[in-house]
């Protein structure tokens, strides 16, 4: 398949990237600039509904995403999505509406516009691994992440459910590993790549999240990882922000910096810490990166 020389995408950052995950947004824009990939933010985009909407009202959740897809259709290029939850909701909407005439009619009425379901929704990982391609990605690497042992954490939503996201193999994906290995890093095989971190129970049932997230951190540490790489702001929140607290509860020390994939890939292309928002990370990555001579 031939690939276009100039890659242009519409971009749906999602609420987190404009708030708690500002460094994911920043590093995404900077990395794509370096890679020569155009990103045009969808004008007037709004919340995809995330976890709450589809738990309350399916029609509401489908309509929110359908409207965003309609807005995105006005911008040239496939839709690039950074957040795993937004990605999941947008893909689920496309999937559900493609299957059900009844729901399609309801949603069309609700958003008062014709549905635009044909556009491709792509997670950043797909754009890097497939559209750009690992060879071209590797060619853009100036500072290979040599010696850095990365535990790639997929969480629940990137590949699930079956036949909805179609990002990679549902239960045994390798796309994150392929991307970060192209940037010169070493990946570790580990057991909890696909386990749930507790997601937004972080606010309502923190005890549950602390237990689940601890299992993930414990497993990554046991596998010999230096750091964890994620593609979801919510996972990042639990693994990074809660890490200190978890260390206290279980009386252990992890000290595992939690990077967004764009931060690590960006680092490998030679972007500086200020362009990657490394200062926004709670678990300080500087000692690790200095030790590995990456800063």
């Amino acid at each position, binding site marked *: 398949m031939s690939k276009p020389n100039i890659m242009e995408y519409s971009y749906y950052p999602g609420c987190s990237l404009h708030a708690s995950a500002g460094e994911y947004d920043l590093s995404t824009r900077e990395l794509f600039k370096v890679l020569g990939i155009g990103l045009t933010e969808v004008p007037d985009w709004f919340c995809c509904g995330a976890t709450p909407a589809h738990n309350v009202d399916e029609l509401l959740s489908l309509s929110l995403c359908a409207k965003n897809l309609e807005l995105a259709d006005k911008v040239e290029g496939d839709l690039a999505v950074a957040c795993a939850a937004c990605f999941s909701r947008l893909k689920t909407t496309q999937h559900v509406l493609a299957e059900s005439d009844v729901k399609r009619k309801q949603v069309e009425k609700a958003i008062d516009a014709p549905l635009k379901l044909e556009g491709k929704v792509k997670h950043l990982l797909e754009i890097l691994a497939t559209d750009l391609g690992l060879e071209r990605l590797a060619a853009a690497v100036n500072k290979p992440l040599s010696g850095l042992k990365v535990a790639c954490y997929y969480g629940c939503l990137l590949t699930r459910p079956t036949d909805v996201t179609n990002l990679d*193999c549902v239960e045994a994906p390798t796309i994150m590993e392929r991307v970060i290995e192209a940037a010169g890093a070493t990946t570790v095989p580990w*057991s909890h790549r696909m386990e749930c971190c507790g997601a937004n129970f972080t606010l309502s049932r923190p005890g549950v999240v602390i237990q689940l997230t601890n299992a993930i951190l414990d497993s990554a540490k*046991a596998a010999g990882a230096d750091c964890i790489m994620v593609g979801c702001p919510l996972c990042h929140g639990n693994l990074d922000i809660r890490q200190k607290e978890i260390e206290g509860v279980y009386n252990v020390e992890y000290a595992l910096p939690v990077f967004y994939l764009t931060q690590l890939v960006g680092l490998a292309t030679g972007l500086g810490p200020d362009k990657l928002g490394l200062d926004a990370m709670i678990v300080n990555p500087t000692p690790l990166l200095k030790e590995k001579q990456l800063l």
Partner: protein
Amino acid sequence: MSRIGVFICHCGENISRTVDVERVAQEVGKLPGVAFSTDYKYMCSDPGQNLLKKAIQDQKLSHIVVAACSPRMHEKTFRKAVEAAGLNPFLCEMANIREHCSWVHENKEEATVKAVEIVGMMVERVKKNRVLPTITVPVTKRALVIGGGIAGIQAALDIADCGHEVILVEREPSIGGHMAQLSETFPTLDCSQCIMTPKMVDVANHPRIKLYTYSEIELVEGYIGNFQVTIKRKARSVNEDTCTGCGVCMEKCPVRKIPNKFDCNLGMRPAIYVPFPQAVPNTPVIDRENCIKFKTGKCGLCQKVCGPGAVDYEQEDSLVVEAVGAIVVATGFDLYTIDEKPKGSAIKGYGEFGHGKIPDVIDGMTFERLASASGPTGGKILRPSDGREPKQIVFIQCIGSRAREKGISYCSKVCCMYTAKHTMLYHHKVHDGQAYVFFMDARTPGKSYDEFWRRSIEEEEAVYIRGMVSRLYQKGDKIVVMGSDIAVGVQVEIEADMVVLATAVQPQKGADLLAQKLGISYDKYNFYSEAHAKLRPVECATAGIYLAGACQGPKDIPETVGQASAAAAKVMTLFSKDKLEREPIVARVKESGCVGCFACKKVCAYGAVEEKEIRDRQGNLIKTVAFVNPGVCAGCGTCQATCPSKCVELDGYTDEQVIAMIEAL
């Protein structure tokens, strides 16, 4: 002028519930050519058929239309009744007002109108039916059995015991199939080898069974009663006639570390080998990929030590052609390999279960080899990784089976029972061990099956946990199994020493290719299709080919043996006559119009079209035309659709008849 009789069936309520059958009989009675019409509750019953016969005689009917179910169901029944009343059976047609009408509609008024039209069409068609003489073909009373597992062995023995010659073809170097690999068998725990090997010996010694092992079907030509089968005999590199089976060659072979497929790659074998000590024939085969002689030209040790001089490096693959009258397909099953995601298949892998990565995660067949007295560990349950005895063992059922989202929706049928058996074998061998089983349902519908399953729990202390496993991973030398117990509603984690996956039963690899050679149909999983799910479960839709065992769907041993004997009985039925009567629904060429383009010959899937020379009285060639061999023609009609000059026609389906049917609408 035709005097057509029309008989409308109620099919109990199946038709009359949605179609006003009396009105259909009335309306149809008014059609030109129809001399008599009536309706009856069950036309196929004895009184129904008598009604038909009586009407033919009393009303002097010339053609018959029976409006009832699909002709696939009862066309033969009614044609036989018509014949008994003195009419040519092919002057009887069926109008399908059940599958095509009453079953698929709800509105009685509309369905009735449609039924009248369907019957009307058949009235127009039957008017143009010709009297057809029955075709007879000779029957070769020899059978081919493909596959030397328990199904093929049973079928071959039954047919041969009835006095007919059997050609048994097996792909592997020995017969025995998967049953020879099993340790003990449910529900009686008798040793598989003890009940299997005598049958294997019977095959080898039977005067009427010709055994071709290490051989494959290359080509199948012909038709029921008259097949020509080309069999490829792969070069064994050892002469079967002179080899005494002493085994010195195997002892001396310097290559020793080839994983033995028969032992699920747990044990090792030399490059010249028999798959297992009880193999039939007990003639070794050289694995040319791993043999030093074939790789480098050096060595040749086995030839030097062979007393009778049976080792032959020059041997080549050879082809033999056998004429047979019937074929039994018994190619069996394979287990789903979960670490391999088959290319181009809808089936998704099970990467989350670590099979192929974690050495102590094994499949059910590997456990059989571990438990088998003739296996690589001499019957001790030991971990492949470090040879330790596992003290906590987890069995997980339904791996691949009943998992629509993973690509297989069927139940593999044998796993519940063999897992229960595994827990018992484990308990018998590891007294201080604990077995856990994750299961969705326990499916034990067989004689003494449920009692067997209960025994594994009540007497053999297996802990059954209703729920599935989401993931497992290696932690130190343990395997952590994460699952759910849905009966209690809790998450379960078990630190196991060994995990056994009950992987799905699938058809043998290449089952689809064999089906294409045979011209039989198969389902989306490559299981072979029977002609009728209930009433013709061992016959293929292709005449003269029969099915036995797991190649048709997952089956346990008793069921497989039963089906194999049933297939043998069908073969015997075929062989009970010297001549075979065939339906004369075949294509005919209008030689005057045929231009000899042979487009029909190219499309004929059955090789029925031949070239025929037309000569004048002086013997000068006028032209070459197509000729359809009525013994071979299957009546599919492809030639009729292809012929550019409209000069091939299928009796009963001529253009004239089809147009008459359309015009009747």
